[in-house]
């Protein structure tokens, strides 16, 4: 056990910190008032930021350099993320591609798909949204009913996706479609890559809980998706075999590691807030408890990365992390709301953060599903 960072890692951290400080200041003066990343104007601002990140070589720290990455280890990724959130940099509009799609491209993509998709994802030339949920398929992902029918030279898509984060501002969607009409549940699904400007595809943005247009519905109405609509092909993995891609993605390390720096940064802000409002002893105690939980998440991540580097895999334990960070995020913001008292109802950063935190136990598989997974796959309880 050695919790000291190496001199090289310290240097990485210093470099990241300096770069972020300088570039955030420049970007902020360039854009004026910063808008929500879940609005059209806000996304436009953030594209400028993504461009800076990519140009600076910080967009995808742990990817190989050939795909636009920095070739860094998971440690360097973790260090960068800690600095990123500490600096108050904005949530990434590229995150659904980088966190959810890219691990599957790395594992299942053809060389041509990797060469084409990954650099464009890293540079935000393509902005990807996730097409998994449907009006009748939320927690029960295997019940998706959007269809893709094989025709000469491509696929005809029909159906609807929804709750698609930032769908109204993205260029592409990755999604699950039922390609074997005789199939049911998790069999007969194909993982397709769909440009959103495909004729027959309609995107309608709508308001999330905080009112920002952070969600979209995506309608597929006899939309023809040509096999070459995406360089390297529109199918990721094998036809009818999307489920194996989905399952593998849940077990891979890239992307699914939630950066603890985010919660450490929020807990540091919370402590400043409470110190500034002269919080009483019970608020200070609650904040100290939340800080410890953020710190524990950081430590657990260090443990997980050590284990991954030793050749272990993440597996179902990611469900433990998801329960922890999502409930911690609510706790951090609930304490802030209590510290703000009457001012908590003002529509500002803290109350936006509170509302966003409430989505944590819902998205990426509800915490009820995560607890089932912990019970069944980690503890081995009967299904």
């Amino acid at each position: 056990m050695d919790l000291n960072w190496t001199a090289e890692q310290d240097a990485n951290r210093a470099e990241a910190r300096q770069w972020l400080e300088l570039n955030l200041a420049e970007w902020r003066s360039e854009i004026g008032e910063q808008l929500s990343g879940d609005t059209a104007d806000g996304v436009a601002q953030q594209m400028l930021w993504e461009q800076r990140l990519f140009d600076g070589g910080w967009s995808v720290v742990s990817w190989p350099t050939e795909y636009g990455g920095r070739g860094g280890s998971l440690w360097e990724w973790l260090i960068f993320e800690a600095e990123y959130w500490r600096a108050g940099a904005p949530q990434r509009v590229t995150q659904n591609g980088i966190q959810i799609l890219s691990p599957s491209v790395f594992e299942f993509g053809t060389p041509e798909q990797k060469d084409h998709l990954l650099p464009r994802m890293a540079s935000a030339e393509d902005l990807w949204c996730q097409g998994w949920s449907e009006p009748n398929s939320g927690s029960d992902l295997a019940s998706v009913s959007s269809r893709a029918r094989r025709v000469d030279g491509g696929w005809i898509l029909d159906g609807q996706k929804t709750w698609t984060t930032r769908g109204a501002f993205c260029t592409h969607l990755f999604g699950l479609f039922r390609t074997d009409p005789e199939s049911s549940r998790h069999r007969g699904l194909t993982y397709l890559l769909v440009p959103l400007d495909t004729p027959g595809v309609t995107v309608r943005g709508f308001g999330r809980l905080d009112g920002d247009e952070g969600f979209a519905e995506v309608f597929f109405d006899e939309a023809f998706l040509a096999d070459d609509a995406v360089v390297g092909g529109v199918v990721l993995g094998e036809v009818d075999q999307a489920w194996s891609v989905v399952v593998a993605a849940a077990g891979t390390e890239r992307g699914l590691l939630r950066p603890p720096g985010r919660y450490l940064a929020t807990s540091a802000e919370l402590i400043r807030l409470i110190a500034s409002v002269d919080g009483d002893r019970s608020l200070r105690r609650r904040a100290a408890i939340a800080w410890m939980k953020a710190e524990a998440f950081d430590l657990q991540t260090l443990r997980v990365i050590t284990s991954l580097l030793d050749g272990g895999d993440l597996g179902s334990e990611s469900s433990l992390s998801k329960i922890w960070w999502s409930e911690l995020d609510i706790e951090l913001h609930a304490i802030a709301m209590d510290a703000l008292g009457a001012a908590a109802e003002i529509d500002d950063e803290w109350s936006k953060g509170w509302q966003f935190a409430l989505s944590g136990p819902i998205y990426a598989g509800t915490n009820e599903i995560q607890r089932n997974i912990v019970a069944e796959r980690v503890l081995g309880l009967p299904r």
Partner: protein
Amino acid sequence: MRFGWSEDQLAFRDAARDLLSKECGPDVVRTAWEGAPDPKPWSSLEAMGVLSVLVPEADGGLGLDETFLVPVLEEAGRAALPQPITDTAMVAASLGVTGSVVVTDLGGPIVGSADTADGFLLAVDGGVALFDADQVEREPVTTVDRSRHAARIRATGPGRTVTDDASEVAAARDRGALGTAAELVGLADQMLAITVDYVGERQQFGKPIGSFQAVKHHLANARVAIEFAGPAVARAAWSIAEGADTASRDASMAKYLANEAAAESAKVALQCHGAIGYTVECDLHLYLKRSWALRRLWGDSDHHVDRVAGVLFE
């Protein structure tokens, strides 16, 4: 000993509930998010006498007490009535102040319906004074619940002193806590009811999600919290109406338990709705955001717990 609303009180409440279910559905609450609220439900309640329950008959009111008003405030909460009915019907009326919409900063610095109110009851040097709409300056505040049309208010005119008596001001604050507690119990019940309907219909994994034990237990927890907050609110209404020694303590207890019931109901309602509830297209958010605002008005949970602890450990 008889702990239940009377026939008259129930009839009055039921009339308000019928009226609000017809005139103040979620679509009406939504209009208040866009601009001025529909005046209809408010004027219907006014015509019913709800705003003047506490006004003496001699002054044209109903001359009744808080045990008549509180059940109706629960209904106003259930409907998420946009106007600040606690301010007008409970606090202002008890101080002898009438007007169509009277709002006050006694419950906190951020005042609802600031743009349409015709009377402003403001804390002034340990007492309260009444100001007309043209005697105040409004600094609008964008709140999470847009239907509140909130602002910070500063007096620019002399106003009319309503009372200099600190104990009357304290009693007004107790009434504000009580009225808000009643609204919160109604809101909690409404969020639970919407969710019970939803989870009975929504199918996942081949069955209604309401048949999963985790969903059942979430909703059972909300039901338990409401079951025990309701009587605390009713008791506080009686204590205040009777001028009991324990009135302040009972008001604090009512507000605390109603706060927690609304928090529990809001939490499980959103979680059991999943992504569908996490949008402004779903009606749930109207009630959710109102409950968040009311939880911190007229004293948050810590404030009221401290008041009760102060009595118990005096």
